């Protein structure tokens, strides 16, 4: 048995392509994620929105002063005629037109236009407040103005478990799910190689006196082990090299990796056991299943996960990638032990079912002549 395990270990490690998928690909993708979501803070992205200012005869000096105060800070204002402003708006040279009659014209519903919208909204409301106070408590005007100057955010986001939350994290949770599920590649490869009708190696092993169960057990154990190390490497890389805020308990997260690898490899094993399809076709199948599963868990866009959960709630309970991502949420965001355990049990049961299915497909297989 040890002999079998040793050689399977060597063989799997030397199979560059499946090691690429299971080990390198998640690391490359994580680095890309870090670049795409990690850099570029809000201030950096939305510096100085260009706007046109149109003065009319019934103009409002206070509003003009307000815009001047914003100029160079959040806005880049330029005074011009209405005709010119409309032309510039149509050419996309300005994001919006402020009229000194406290009106705004925009051409799209981009993030920039909604910033302009909320800027004007705040002004209109503050003006109404000041007029209110000036008419009833003019003596307190100064205090009120000071209070207005201290306009702050009054909310603070915490996770259900009390930790703060970074939305970019959801991509990394889905990525960890992908890293685990890509264990299907080594799993598939192992199955292909042990089947006598698909590989010469399988045929050779078939005629050896070693019991089939022993053989399959040895290779499965080694593959699970390797895949666990692969996903643990991805976890450490994301946590310590890319420095993402995976604040949860490390032991707990490694346990998710272990169960996740189990389901990934099992998925490969079950596909490897089905029929006599060529390896290319089987790779296509596992790729399709894992990509769509990860897509639904939010790998491409967190909106997809939210949308899927709203449309078909049970899909998140049975989709392996969603269950793995949810387990990470439970540890890092919700701090919810009960649901975390529930996720792990779900993974274990699903893996068990898959391995059983694989066993049923291959048991009592006999070859007369190959």
């Amino acid at each position: 048995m040890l002999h079998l395990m040793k050689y399977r270990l060597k063989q799997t490690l030397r199979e560059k392509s499946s090691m690429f998928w299971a080990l390198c690909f998640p690391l490359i993708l994580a680095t890309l994620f870090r670049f795409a979501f990690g850099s570029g803070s809000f201030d950096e992205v939305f510096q100085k929105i260009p706007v046109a200012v149109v003065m009319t005869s019934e103009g409002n000096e206070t509003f003009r002063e307000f815009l001047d105060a914003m100029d160079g800070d959040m806005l880049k204002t330029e005074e011009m005629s209405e005709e010119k402003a409309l032309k510039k708006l149509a050419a996309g040279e300005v994001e919006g037109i402020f009229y000194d009659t406290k009106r705004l014209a925009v051409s799209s519903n981009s993030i920039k236009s909604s910033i302009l919208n909320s800027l004007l909204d705040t002004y209109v409301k503050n003006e109404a407040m000041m007029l209110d106070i000036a008419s009833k408590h003019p003596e307190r005007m100064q205090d009120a103005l000071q209070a207005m100057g201290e306009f702050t955010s009054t909310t603070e986001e915490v996770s259900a478990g009390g930790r703060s939350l970074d939305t970019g994290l959801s991509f990394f949770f889905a990525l960890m799910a992908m890293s685990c599920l890509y264990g299907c590649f080594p799993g598939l490869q192992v199955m292909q190689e042990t089947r006598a009708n698909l590989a010469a190696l399988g045929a050779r092993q078939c005629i050896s006196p070693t019991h089939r169960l022993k053989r399959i057990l040895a290779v499965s154990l080694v593959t699970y082990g390797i895949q666990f190390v692969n996903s643990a490497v991805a976890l450490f890389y994301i946590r310590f090299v890319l420095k993402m805020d995976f604040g949860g308990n490390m032991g707990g997260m490694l346990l998710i990796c272990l169960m996740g690898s189990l389901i990934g490899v099992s998925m490969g094993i079950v596909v490897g056991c089905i029929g006599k399809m060529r390896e290319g076709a089987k790779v296509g199948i596992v790729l399709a299943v894992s990509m769509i599963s990860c897509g639904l868990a939010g790998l491409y866009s967190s909106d997809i996960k939210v949308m899927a959960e709203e449309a078909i709630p049970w899909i998140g309970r049975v989709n392996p990638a969603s269950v793995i991502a949810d387990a990470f949420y439970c540890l890092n965001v919700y701090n919810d032990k009960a649901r975390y355990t529930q996720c792990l049990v779900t993974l274990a049961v699903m893996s068990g079912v898959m391995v059983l299915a694989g066993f049923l497909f291959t048991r009592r297989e006999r070859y007369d002549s190959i």
Partner: protein
Amino acid sequence: MTVYKGYLKLWSKELHLVFLYFAIFMSVGIMMQFAASKKQEESYASEQLDIAVIDEDGGELAEGLKEYLGKIHKIQDIGETAKDVQEALFYRKVKYVVTIPENFERGFLEHGEKLKTTKVPGSEQEVYLDSQIDTFLNGVRVYTAGGYSVSEAIGHVKNVEKNKAEVKMIANNETGGMKANYVYLFQYFPYIMLAVLGYSSGVLISFRRKEIRQRMYCSSKSVIRQNMAGVAAFVTIGGIIWVVCMVIVLAMSGKEFLKSANIGYYLLNSLVMMLVALAVAFMLGMFARDNDTHSGDHNLSAVVNVISLGMSFLCGVFVPLEVLGKEVKAVAQFLPVYWYEVINEMLGEFDVLTTEMLGTLWKGMAIQGAFAVACVAVALGVGGRVREV
């Protein structure tokens, strides 16, 4: 013609795999289109959300806030313990939970204490809720500083809330300033093209096997003609996939798309992108190991995935250009997909293109074209070197 037919014959043998990959990538694309357009609609309409308010304070300010939020959203009763909150968020019973802590009224007015909010992770429309709470509480603070009592302040803030900014939409496109649905499908088009054509380039590997190469050199046809036949076959394959993609666009939002003022530019831009993807695929096919097709296939799919996903993430296919960081954009502008996306965004937003926009459009297409030519040149160069070996 024989070589051309040979390429297509090999490709048709792999057709089931090509279709499989096409279906996978297309379904991801369609999934993303639905998510993105749904998000756009939500950001437009101030939607009523299911929320929960846990009031541990019970004071006047807390009541006022509850009433204020209750007018805009639907307040659900979910219980008060941490477990209840987790349960409600996990099963999406509510999307937003705000906890008003004990003695909040004093804490907030005297020390600026903050409210604790919890959202469903990954969903963004709740940002508006934050700003609604900000407006309410800051308003109360200003009024109390201005000499009003808390209950008076609450009443006045609710009154002031009725003042809304007057915003006019002068849309530059037919869809009223919103992006049409097909714009999103075109946004994912580079990913589909790069991935599917990349996989198709496996055909080249078979042609580069030693025996086949030797056999082909014996023929009376010049190597240049053979290569040209290969290129022509690749263009045919690309054309077929491009047509299938356009048919899908038509099937999903044909009416809208046919009415678009920029339909010609959309087609041209995607056609140029298809050529880029073909050129990349052609280059990959030339680089892939040819000594044994089996591992060549695997190496190829690894490289194809890294290139297609890499370009897609850096150039605004998955993450919109407007939220990408400056450094990322600085790198991305050397890549063709970035220019494709810049053009696509512009076409989505403006029905009438100014001279300057047309300048950007042609520049973008020229950069894409130059990239494609460079890839083919490198590929042919490598092909030549391999031949000499």
